Each structure stands twice: as structure tokens, then as C-alpha cells.
């Protein structure tokens, strides 16, 4: 199944905005979009959660893979604008310790870190 992912560009990062649900049925589609961008040379990725209502561990798995790949390539992955109930899932998974999560897109700019 597909997933709609809007893309925007800030000064030095590519912002991905997955829309709706990121679950076991479309995590693969999301994975190939993310890995294509990294493969294409993107080094600073921001995943903006403001249009995402649902994520399951299948979706989180993709983010961990991307974080690992970007770390190896000296890049960075930042997540922002998560709804509370989604942030809670990242917290109990310990993902908040290994992938930076910021309140807003602005706060995720490298300069502000």
C-alpha cells in the first residue's frame, strides 16, 4: 500500500511529511522513499509528523534504519511536531534517546540544536 509523503526543502535540510497512517501495510513504501533520498545524497533529513495520525513499530523501524544510515554517512535525522500519543510511543521505545525529537520544524534546524 502507498503512503502520501509531502516534501519541502529548508536552507540545508530535506523535510518529509508523511500523511495519515504509517503502519505495517505501507512502511515498505515509506522505507523506499526515505532510502532513495538518502541514496540520492540527502544528508540532513527532517521528518515532520504534523500530518501523521498513526504510526506502528513497522514505521518506527524505517526511522531507525534511516537514522543508522545517516549516522554512518555523517548526516542527521531529526523528527518534529509529533502528537503527544505518538511521542509517548517513541519514549517507551527509547527512540527519543537515539533520534532527536523537536517541538517544531524551526527548532530542528542544525543551528538551533
Amino acid at each position, binding site marked *: *500500500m502507498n503512503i502520501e509523503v509531502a516534501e519541502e526543502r529548508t536552507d540545508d535540510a530535506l523535510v518529509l511529511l508523511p500523511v495519515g*497512517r504509517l*503502519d*505495517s*501495510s505501507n512502511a515498505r513504501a515509506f522505507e523506499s522513499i526515505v532510502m532513495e533520498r538518502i541514496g540520492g545524497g540527502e544528508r540532513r533529513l527532517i521528518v515532520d509528523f504534523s500530518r501523521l495520525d*498513526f504510526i*506502528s*513499530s*513497522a514505521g*518506527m*523501524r524505517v526511522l*531507525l*534504519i534511516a*537514522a*543508522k544510515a545517516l*549516522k554512518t554517512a555523517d548526516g542527521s535525522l531529526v523528527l518534529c511536531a509529533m502528537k*503527544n*500519543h*505518538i511521542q*509517548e*510511543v517513541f519514549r*517507551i*521505545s*527509547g527512540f527519543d*534517546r*537515539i533520534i532527536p525529537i523537536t517541538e517544531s520544524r524551526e527548532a530542528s534546524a542544525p543551528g538551533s540544536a
Partner: protein
Amino acid sequence: MMDEFHVALAPRLSAVRSLSRMVEEFGDANRLPHPKIYMINLALDELITNSLTHGFDGIDDPRIEVTVRLASDALVLTTVDNGHRFDPTAVERPDVEAPMERRPIGGLGLHIIRTFADRVTYEYAGGRNRLTLEHDLTAPASGGGRRRDEEHR
């Protein structure tokens, strides 16, 4: 008010979506707080995916039954499947404090849903796995009324 909602299905990934929309209708009809609905749908995604990936190898007529029940102070999710015997409550928890390098890919689904549930029970009977996840709806300290409306979107 709808108190109970039950679906029997031959598991497919695509069924998870239909099911989640049904659970949302059930939640809306009962004015359940949105985070509780998320927990139920998260658990369904994890459990059905697990059954499909690990549970039904070589099983002839794979079946999952899902029941969501609204008790007086808890939201209860039960799944019954005829897959291989598997007790999710016996699975070791992942080390969520490990640094990125030592974090394996996967192994999170059961941890998440077990952490969120207030009570988890598993039994194997009649060739079926039966897993029950209970999510309290009353405020723990006050012991007062339901929290349903508080967080209602």
C-alpha cells in the same frame, strides 16, 4: 453506546486498515479518548502483523478474531487466533536504553503494547492463542468517573 465489537477475519495486511476504521467508529460512537483508540489500533497492527509474519506458517485456515469491549472502567481488546502456540507475555523486553549502534531493527511491537496496557493475559486453549489487553478508563488516583470525554478530540 456500543459495548462490544467483534470481527472474525482471515488475516491479511489490508484487513488492518478496514479494522482500524471500524475501531475508530466504535471509539467515536462511545466518545472514547483518541489516545485509547490509538492504543487499540496500534495493538491490532502489531498483533496481526506478528501473526502473519511469525504465527501462521503451515496453518491451513488461518483465522484471527478480534473483540473490543467497553467494560465499566476499562477498554478490553481480545485477540484469538489458531496460529502456532506463542505466549507474547513471555518474550524478553528489548533494551530500550541501548545506544543506537546496539539497537536491533525490530523487536519493539510487543514491548510497546505490553507497556501501554494496564493488564495483559495470555492463555492457550482449544488450539487457540487468546491474548487480552486491558486499558483502564478511570483516573487511577481519584477512582472517579470515566476519563472518556477529557481527551476527546
